[in-house]
């Protein structure tokens, strides 16, 4: 029985140490740059159909959605990750903190807006970043789902 207690204690210590590591580990977030416009009716990739439906439901009617870029960002506290958008703007992403396992991320478009997002497993945040090539550019933040595209 002493052997079992020892194992359980080891497991508890491992769990505690992993929780401590999680507080220091970088937070990953999927970011997509999507151009929504009324030029044509392209959906590239087709998975953007969900975004189109969400926008239509919210009253934003665009006929075409094209993903211009997609990347997984790794955010660490005290370090800003910058992204250059096709419309010449720059977006900065910064991990504000981790509270109860939930990360808060600040998204800043210099000279325009600063948004704080509490990350969650479901849903996305569609941040309008301005016009581009006759349409509107959006930065979409989502949770990484085993590396698959949302």
């Amino acid at each position: 029985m002493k052997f079992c207690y020892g194992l359980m204690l080891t497991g508890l210590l491992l769990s505690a140490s992993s929780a401590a590591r999680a507080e220091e580990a970088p937070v990953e977030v999927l970011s997509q740059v999507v151009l929504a416009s009324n030029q044509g009716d392209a959906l590239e990739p087709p998975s953007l159909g969900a975004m189109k439906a969400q926008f239509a439901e919210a009253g934003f009617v665009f006929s075409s959605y094209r993903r211009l870029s997609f990347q997984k960002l790794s955010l660490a506290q005290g370090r800003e990750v910058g992204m250059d958008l096709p419309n010449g703007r720059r977006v900065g992403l910064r991990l504000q903190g981790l509270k109860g396992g939930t990360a808060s991320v600040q998204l800043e478009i210099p000279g325009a807006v600063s948004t704080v997002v509490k990350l969650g497993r479901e849903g996305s945040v569609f941040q309008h970043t301005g016009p581009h090539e006759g349409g509107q550019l959006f930065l979409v933040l989502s949770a990484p789902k085993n590396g698959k595209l949302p």
Partner: protein
Amino acid sequence: MSSNPACQTFLPMLSPFVDGELLPAQRVEVERHIAVCHDCTGRVADFRAESGLVRLGMEMLADEADFSQFAQGVMARITPYKLPLLDRWKLSLSEIFAHQRAALAYALAGAACALLVAVPWLMRDREPVGYASPQMAVESVNAERGARISPVVKRAKDGNTIIWLVDTPVPAEDAGTPGARGEELPQGLGEEMDEELEMERPMGNGEKALDPQRPTGGEL
């Protein structure tokens, strides 16, 4: 040679008698003869002395030889017979079940405990760091000072949130300034959307509504 004719019968039996190789009945007969025959008694004594000398000589020879590596040398020359893998497994298992049941039970109990701890730990690690909340949530949206935009937040279902940056009207004195109106609303989004967005505009801390001339956003 002996003058006693009985000695001729017992003479070949004397050496086996000394070596203890006779049957009990023969031994008794030889002992009876020795008891009465002085010559054969002397012969038996000679045989015993000779045997002792031979044994002593052999022991001296054995002492001179080095037998320290004898066992290893013999074992090295013996090619061990290797059982097939399946038979070895069967043999090992049968030995474990026969002689080490307690150790096996402890090992199984320990493995079960390790699984009880490790499985939830591994499952927990699959969730990415920072995503304890079930849904995404926008905490605050703030327009930067001097920016001529008003952020409009529309919460959709399933944790989706759309943040739209609406241009604010340019003050009359700035109307002619080039670039004062940085962004334009997309074509196709008419007055109807503007009205809807107006209702969704974020409220500041205690503020009733944002100043349309200077939107600053606020806590949601």
